[in-house]
């Protein structure tokens, strides 16, 4: 069991990245009585995430202050599905200030799942995803005003 400590979170995530990089679906490693098996389900369109947005987290942070409405990557915009604001209001990522956000970048969402709340005229309007997919970008900071048609999320749609 001591060997267990040899492998830590960082190493596992490195292995996962390696897996993704090589577009492998399964990986098995056995070292001195320690065995790890990582596998990932690959729905058809998912590998395309890679070229479109290799590192969504950092990219969103960079893009936000300058041009919140600009498309993040020009290479393959047709693969992005944008969730835009249907009204003028205030954007909230969580149902209340103490609860966790509805979604984070990289999370899978289902059609009809609540992505955020837009408060307009004291009413909380839940904005739902209209596709199954993976959240690639969140364009607006929590608590900021949004206008009609403004991009809120980019979602990589998954083939049904």
């Amino acid at each position, binding site marked *: 069991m001591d060997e267990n400590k040899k492998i830590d979170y960082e190493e596992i995530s490195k292995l996962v990245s390696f897996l993704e990089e090589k577009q492998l679906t399964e990986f098995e490693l056995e070292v001195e009585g320690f065995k790890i098996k990582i596998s990932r389900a690959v729905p058809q369109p998912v590998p395309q995430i890679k070229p479109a947005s290799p590192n969504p987290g950092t990219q969103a942070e960079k893009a936000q202050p300058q041009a919140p409405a600009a498309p993040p990557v020009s290479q393959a915009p047709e693969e992005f599905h944008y969730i835009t604001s249907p*009204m*003028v*209001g*205030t954007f909230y990522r969580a149902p209340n200030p103490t609860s966790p956000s509805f979604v984070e970048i990289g999370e899978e969402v289902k059609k009809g799942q609540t992505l955020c709340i837009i408060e*307009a*005229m004291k009413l909380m309007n839940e904005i739902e995803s209209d596709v199954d997919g993976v959240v690639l970008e969140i364009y607006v900071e929590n608590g900021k*005003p949004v*206008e*009609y*048609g*403004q991009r809120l999320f980019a979602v990589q749609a998954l083939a049904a």
Partner: protein
Amino acid sequence: MFSKILIANRGEIALRVIRAARELGLNTVAVYSESDRNSLHTILADEKVCIGPSRAADSYLNIPNILGAAEQTKAEAIHPGYGFLAENPRFAEICESSGIIFIGPQPAMIKLMGNKSLARQEMRKSHLYILPGSNEVVQDLPEAKKIAKKMGYPVILKAAAGGGGKGMRIARTRAQLEEQFGLAQNEAKASFSDASLYVEKYLDNSRHIEIQVVGDKHGNVVALGERECSIQRKHQKIIEESPSPFVDDRLRKRMIKAAEDAARRIGYQSLGTFEFLVDGQERYYFMEANTRVQVEHPVTEMVYGVDLVKEQIRIAAGEKLSIKDDIGMIGHCLECRINAEDPVTFSPSPGTIDFMLLPGGHGIRVDSAAYQGWQIPPDYDSLVAKIIALAPTRPEAIRKMQTALEMTTIVGIKTNLPLHLAILADSDFAKGSYDTQFMERFQQKNGNNHK
């Protein structure tokens, strides 16, 4: 005074309000639909908020989004311009209850004046003459025929929820009434989703003359001299002028006093217009009151040397009326409405303005939101520019307007510039002998009898 106002409108009137606000030192917020992204009001305001797609019902009439935009930008007041939500009492009420000042009269006043039969009753109490007509909405043709028979033909059918000339039809005989009633109902239904009609006595050879009133929240009311608006086609005004060639000093004083007394009696607290029909015997009949800034307000501004929109904003902020009761007219003013439309068939002509040269010079004012390269969206009204000419006398004002229009070039869209030049050159127009049927005669005379 406010520090920031939102303008819930588009086009030249939004720009007119932005200019007035900026002159008063206020910040401005434009709201715009997706098809007005490149429109001048969107570009020239200090802030802008997109409130919906092209369709007016989803954007410029979208009350939640407009109020949301006011809330987000912390605008303290909303100027509604004309059209859209300008005479919607519910909007004024919601503004009030949201703590935002509606730049216009009290919601109850808008409601009162929007109800034609109540407005008529109220004005009768204020000793204004009213044309005979149905006191309530007329539901069906037999009822309309009964009323028409009682007061005598010709009669005019008006949409109860109407405005802007839509749903108005004239019937000179019983047969015409039978024919027009259904059409007017359909038009009213299509334009205002309300088929209710009124029947009123129609006056032949009458003029459409209106009086500007301004009241503040301290009980002060002043009325300014007339705007002559008889040059209209299908109840759409084309050329307005002030003073009216038909109104002498005596009649003007009577009409001003009548409107001022009525406005004071009902406690009117903003900019408003009392529309009258004036017959050949100088009798004037109240038609309706518009509780907003009018398209043709510049002619009054020019002849009196006042700024009505700034006054309207100041009054909404609680300031006292600054326009004095004893100011006089300083000349003669004409306004031509240049529309993006075919000058012969009158069908709208949206498109891109490839080249544009607007007139200028001494005594010329242009209120327009058009610019070279701008694509006029097909979703809204066709007004491209209001060209306004001020000169000491009427003949000089006409000559000045002709010169201005001759030096105006708009390429890429069709405009009614040729129509304006033809009207200005008409001998009856030059003599000032015209009434509300001028355009029908003019079109017959000039051979293009299009409907």
